[in-house]
Structures are given as structure tokens and as C-alpha cells.
């Protein structure tokens, strides 16, 4: 599905208008005192609550979250402290806090970490709240419901979903149209062909990360779209070594040899692809939309020539995993009732409608599709809605269990890719190593 950003209005003026709308939104929520206290029938007055919010690329959305929680606290007599944490550092901060016993009362947490921590009993279950919120807003999207179900490892649901992210393919339409390419690439082979046509120093066509960072794990999705798998259907036996993985590695090596990857992509940090695209050095990247937001703000001309589409397909189809974001309450929280009430409040459509219009998340509940953010006027949000409706479950076709999350965090697939293109290993040797390392991880669970 292709989306040219013909109407960037809703997000295009975040820097100027977003903050104003954030202030207006939180003001409206404060003015609606009934709404602020609606979720909290209990009396929490005099108590304290600390919330760790996940910092995203949209300042206005971050501010709206802070203001809303603060306003909720003021209306309910709860002294709130909101700490916004860079999402790249959530794992480290949460790990340290769990060990030190200094977890907040509630926090935003990604699916990988939620899964790993839920297995250790770090979070309380939220089944009643999950059911209540879902029932009130048309039910949860099936992919979201399946992906965030921690019942088998924690005895219940520990995360309340509030947004979905995932990769979209961003492309430089100006360069591609010059080369006579109008439609976005449908397959990975087409992507390489198109990338090769526009690769001319200083532009490298294919800005996909191959490094040991989260962005590098897009290689896992590509491998899966070629039919490769991390493990079997039981999620126990590692099956990386296969003809399908070999086909993926052959595709990768061919692309590498064509010189379509930007130099340095094997050591990019989390912002490597963002920088490559924003500085005009990459014609294609796979990104959550943060680059689009940054371009809207700092380089409107680049944004105007940016096209958004779904990730290309491999021989078995498109693998475009959704990444649900959730809110959770640590078992160590001394104010769980208030935290529960706050999470319910943060799931109200009045807040989320405003929040989605500023943030870079797709919806999690069916009724949210009717929010103005998803009315089709904005390319990024349309892409995110499409991702929720047509994307694949996290890890699919693999089983997204704790072992998969661990292997994913260990960058098993990007490391295998590096062995082939950086170290010059043949596919057999690279697959053997990846197979062995992944099996060692799976054996731990």
C-alpha cells in the first residue's frame, strides 16, 4: 500500500501548533473535572504516584502525557511525578530499578521487556482493567490482543496496550521519479533494483541497518519473508539453518555486492538510518515514522518528497510485525489502586484521541479508528493504521515467546548477516553459528 503525504496538516505543524494543541488538550481535560475523576471512584488523596513515560520523537505528545497525568493527580489529590525516559534506555533503567527495588508505580513498556519481566513476576495482572477498557471501546484489535497476552507466562495480562508502532518503508520519491520509478517496490528484489538505480554518491539506495541495534532486527523480518524461521512452531527447536535462510542471505549478499547499502550501516546506532535519510544519504529506509516527524519539523521539503509504503514482500509474503506499546504496574508499587485508576484514565478516548494526533502510534482498540488522527489525511498515521490492520503479529511466523524476545535482543539475525557481508563467511558457516547461538538461548527457557 502506497501513501504519498499529500496532506501533512495534522502533524506538519507540530513544532508550532502541536505544543499549543497539547496545552489546549490537557486544559480541556482539566476543565472536564468529571472526566478526570470518573475513573477513580476510590479516594487516593494524599498518596504519591510515580510514572515513567516512554519518550517519543513528538515533543507535543510527550508534553500532553505529562500534563494529563499531572492534571489527573491534581484532580484526585494524588501527588504525581512523571519521568519521561528515552525508549532506547528503558531496558537499562527498568533492569536497574527492578534489582534496586526502585520501580515506579506505573510505566510505559515495550512488548519485549514486558514479556521478559512478566516471566519474573515483576508486574501485576490487569485482566479486569483490560476487559473493561476493551468492552468500552469496541474491543481490542486482534493482533494487539494476541501479541500482548502474557497469560501463559504470568497467569494473566500484565500490560495494557496503548499504541502500536512498526516499520514503514520511506522512500525519496524525487530521486525515484527521476529514474522513472513511481510505484513503491512490492518485493525485496524490486527494492534492491530500485535502490541500485538511484545509488550515486552521496546517495546510497538502501538505508537498512545491519548493526547490533533494534533497527538491525528488520533483517529478521526480511529473513522471515523469505520463509526463514528462528524456531519451530512449538517455539523450542531453533530452525535458522534452512534453504529459506540461505535464500535470504543470498539476496543480502547480492544487494551488498551491488553497493546499495550506505557505508557504515553495519555500525549504525539507533539513529543511524534516521540520520542517513535526513541528511539525504539514503533513498529508502525502514522506520517507525519518527523520521517523517523529524522531516516535517526540520526539513519540510524532504517531507514533501517522502513516500510511505508497507514493507516489501518476500517469497512467502510480507512480514511487517507490529510492536505494541503497553502500560504496566510493577508488583512493588505501593499505590497500585491509584496506578490502576490512572491507567484506566489514560485509556479514555478523550485523551487518546488527542494523544494519537500528536504521537507516532497506531490504534489498539477498534473504536479508535474513528479518531481524527486516522481519517486518512496524514500519511504516517494512515500507514500506522494499515500496519495494525494488516501487519503481522510480533515474531510471526515464529512464536513470540520469551526465548524469541531474548534471541531478538541478542541480534542473532543481524549478526548472521554481518558474518556474510562483513566477514565474508559463506552462508553455511554463518547459519551454523546463528543456529548454535540461538539454540543456546532457547535452551535456557
Amino acid at each position: 500500500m502506497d501513501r504519498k503525504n499529500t496532506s501533512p496538516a495534522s502533524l506538519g505543524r507540530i513544532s508550532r501548533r502541536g505544543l499549543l494543541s497539547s496545552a489546549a488538550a490537557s486544559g480541556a481535560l482539566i476543565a472536564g473535572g468529571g472526566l478526570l475523576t470518573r475513573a477513580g471512584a476510590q479516594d487516593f488523596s494524599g498518596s504519591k504516584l510515580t510514572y515513567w513515560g516512554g519518550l517519543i520523537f513528538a515533543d507535543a505528545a510527550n508534553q500532553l502525557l505529562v500534563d494529563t497525568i499531572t492534571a489527573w493527580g491534581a484532580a484526585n489529590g494524588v501527588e504525581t511525578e512523571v519521568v519521561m525516559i528515552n525508549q532506547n534506555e528503558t531496558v537499562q533503567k527498568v533492569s536497574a530499578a527492578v534489582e534496586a527495588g526502585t520501580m515506579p508505580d506505573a510505566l510505559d513498556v515495550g512488548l519485549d521487556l514486558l514479556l521478559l519481566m512478566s516471566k519474573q513476576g515483576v508486574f501485576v495482572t490487569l485482566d479486569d482493567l483490560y476487559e473493561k477498557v476493551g468492552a468500552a471501546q469496541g474491543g481490542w484489535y486482534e493482533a494487539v490482543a494476541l501479541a500482548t497476552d502474557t497469560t501463559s507466562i504470568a497467569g494473566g495480562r500484565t500490560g495494557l496496550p496503548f499504541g502500536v508502532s512498526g516499520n514503514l518503508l520511506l522512500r525519496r520519491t524525487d530521486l525515484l521519479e527521476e529514474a522513472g520509478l513511481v510505484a513503491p517496490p512490492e518485493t525485496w528484489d524490486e527494492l534492491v533494483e530500485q535502490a541500485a538505480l538511484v545509488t550515486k554518491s552521496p546517495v546510497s539506495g538502501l538505508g537498512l541497518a545491519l548493526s547490533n541495534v533494534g533497527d538491525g532486527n528488520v533483517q529478521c523480518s526480511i529473513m522471515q519473508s523469505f520463509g526463514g524461521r528462528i524456531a519451530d512452531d512449538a517455539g523450542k527447536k531453533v530452525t535458522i539453518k534452512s534453504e529459506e535462510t540461505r535464500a535470504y542471505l543470498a539476496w543480502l549478499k547480492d544487494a551488498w555486492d551491488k553497493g546499495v547499502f550506505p557505508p557504515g550501516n553495519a555500525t549504525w546506532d539507533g539513529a543511524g538510518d534516521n540520520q542517513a535519510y535526513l541528511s539525504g544519504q539514503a533513498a529508502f529506509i525502514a522506520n517507525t515514522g519518527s523520521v517523517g516527524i523529524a522531516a516535517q519539523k526540520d526539513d519540510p521539503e524532504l517531507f514533501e518528497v517522502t513516500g510511505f509504503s508497507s514493507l516489501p514482500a518476500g517469497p512467502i509474503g510480507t512480514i511487517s510485525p507490529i510492536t505494541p506499546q503497553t502500560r504496566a504496574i510493577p508488583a512493588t508499587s505501593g499505590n497500585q489502586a491509584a496506578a490502576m485508576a490512572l491507567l484506566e484514565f489514560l485509556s479514555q478516548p478523550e485523551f487518546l484521541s488527542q494523544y494519537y494526533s500528536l504521537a507516532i502510534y497506531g490504534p489498539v482498540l477498534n473504536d479508535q479508528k474513528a479518531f481524527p488522527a486516522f481519517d486518512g489525511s496524514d500519511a504516517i498515521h494512515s500507514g500506522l493504521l494499515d500496519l495494525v490492520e494488516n501487519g503481522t503479529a510480533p515474531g510471526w511466523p515464529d512464536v513470540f515467546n520469551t526465548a524469541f524476545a531474548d534471541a531478538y535482543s541478542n541480534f542473532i539475525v543481524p549478526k548472521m548477516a554481518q558474518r556474510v557481508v562483513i566477514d565474508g563467511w559463506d552462508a553455511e558457516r554463518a547459519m551454523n553459528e546463528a543456529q548454535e547461538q540461538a539454540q543456546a538461548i532457547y535452551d535456557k527457557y
Partner: protein
Amino acid sequence: MEISAAPSGTARSRTRRWMTGARRTQLFAYALVLPVVALIIGLVAYPFFFALWVAFTDRVVGGGGNWIGLDNFRYLAKTAIFTAAIRNTIIIVLATDILKFAIGLSLALLVTQRIPARGFFRSFLMLPWAMPAFVAFLTWRVLYQPIGGGLNLILTETGLYPHVIDWLGQRSTAMPSVIAASVWRGFPFWFISILAALQSIPKDLYEAARVDGANAWERFKMVTFPGIRHVVLITTLLSSIWTANAFEHVWLLTQGGPSDATMVFPVLAYFGMQTQRIGEAAAVSVAMLPIMAILVIIVTSAMQRDDD
């Protein structure tokens, strides 16, 4: 029965006999060092032995951990990346120590000469060390950028090399690039240490050597080097430990990549922490101990020989 709160006469005299002046002084001395001992136990000994214990468990974040003996070490030994981390850590420590020594010594010898603006140069040369590591290595990362990076601009603009070099992105240049940045940041410590040692060598020794007909090299070999040897040994020890434990130079430049070309122990331990497996991460850190211990023994033995 009536119980008296005051000690009986016999007990009092026994206490008095025990609490002699010497014993009081001893106790007072112990009391004085007690806070420091408590601090060392709390901040050094406890974390050290805790990390040692964790390395032998399957502990994950939020979990208790069971004793699994050497399983973590066996697992690490099987992985190619662990072998790479050992090799790379040794290479980085050796290469940076040798280069920092050579640069530090050369510059220290230079600024002990009567040259104009000597004071300025001494301060100026300390700048890399004074700069926060984070800033220094990010700056180097920018310099190494394939497109728009300073090094490539110099090479291409001056015609020295017409092609763009992906300094950090290819196996052949990644490690030398990390070493160069580490040497740049770390040489001032060697420079200032050696300079201090040079200044403590009595001038009479040089005069005597000259009178004996010693040339410049002989004066360096017979007077200068023995004079700075002790400092060089201590600097080698400290610098090696710091470099082996340093995280930011590799993390900010390459994150251990490309592939495992620059993977070192601290970065590998960090990856272990990222996946919540504290036991394995601790095992990586503990695996460094024998290497460090050997280095400490070699250097302290050499220093002991000097003292003897």
C-alpha cells in the same frame, strides 16, 4: 534480690587492667580506620564478591538465581564472540599502551626542552583528557563518517586518496580507528605522568653523564629511562586496567561491530545486561579478572624488583 546497676569493685578493676593505655590507643586507631574499612567493604568488597557469586548463577533481572557452577563460562567459551572479545581486548590494551607511551614520552621530552610557549603546550596537551569521553568519542565518530566526515574530506580534498573510506564499517579499519581515538583521548595521562617523572630526575646526573662522554641516546638509556621507569610501570598498570574496562570508546564508535571486529569485554557484558541475564553478564566481567590479575602481578613484581 537487689541488683546494682553499678559494676562491682572487682569488675571495675578488671576493666581497668584490660583497658591499658596501649590498648586504648589501639582501639582508638581501629575506630579511626573503621569508617574506611566499612566503606571498602560496602563499596568494593561486597560488590566484588556479589558479582563473583552472580557469575556462577543463572540469575536474570527480577529473579533470584540458582547456582549453576561453571555453566555460564562454558556457554561463553563456546561462543565466537567471546573469543573475539578476549582477542580484541588484548589488542586494544597492548596497542593503546604502546602508542600512548610513545606519544606521551615524546611529548614529555619535547616540553622539557626550552621551547617557546612551553607552559601553554603543557596545558594544551592535556585537553583531550580533560574533555568528557562522551564528547570526545562522538566527535571522533563524526570525523570517521564515510560521507561528510572530516578524515575523508581531508583525504579526498587534498587528493591523497580519492575514495571514501568507511572507517568504522569495515573489519580492516574499525579496530585501528578505535585505537586511534582511544590513544588520542588517553595519551595526556601518560604525558603528564612521564613529564612529572622527568622533572624529578636530578640535573646533576645529566651533567655527570655528559662529562663521561655519553651521547643523547646513552643519556636517555642510562639516566632518563631508569628515572621514569617506576612511573611508566604504574602508568602502564593503570592505563591497562582503565582501557580494558572502558566501555564508551567502543560503544560510541562501533558498538562492538562491524560483526565482532571491535567487541570487547565491557560491551559484551553490556549486551548480556540488555537481555536481562545478569549471570552471564557477570561471568563476562569475571572472565577478565585472570587477565588483569596477571598484568597486576607482572607490574607489581617489576616494581618490587626496582625497590629491592
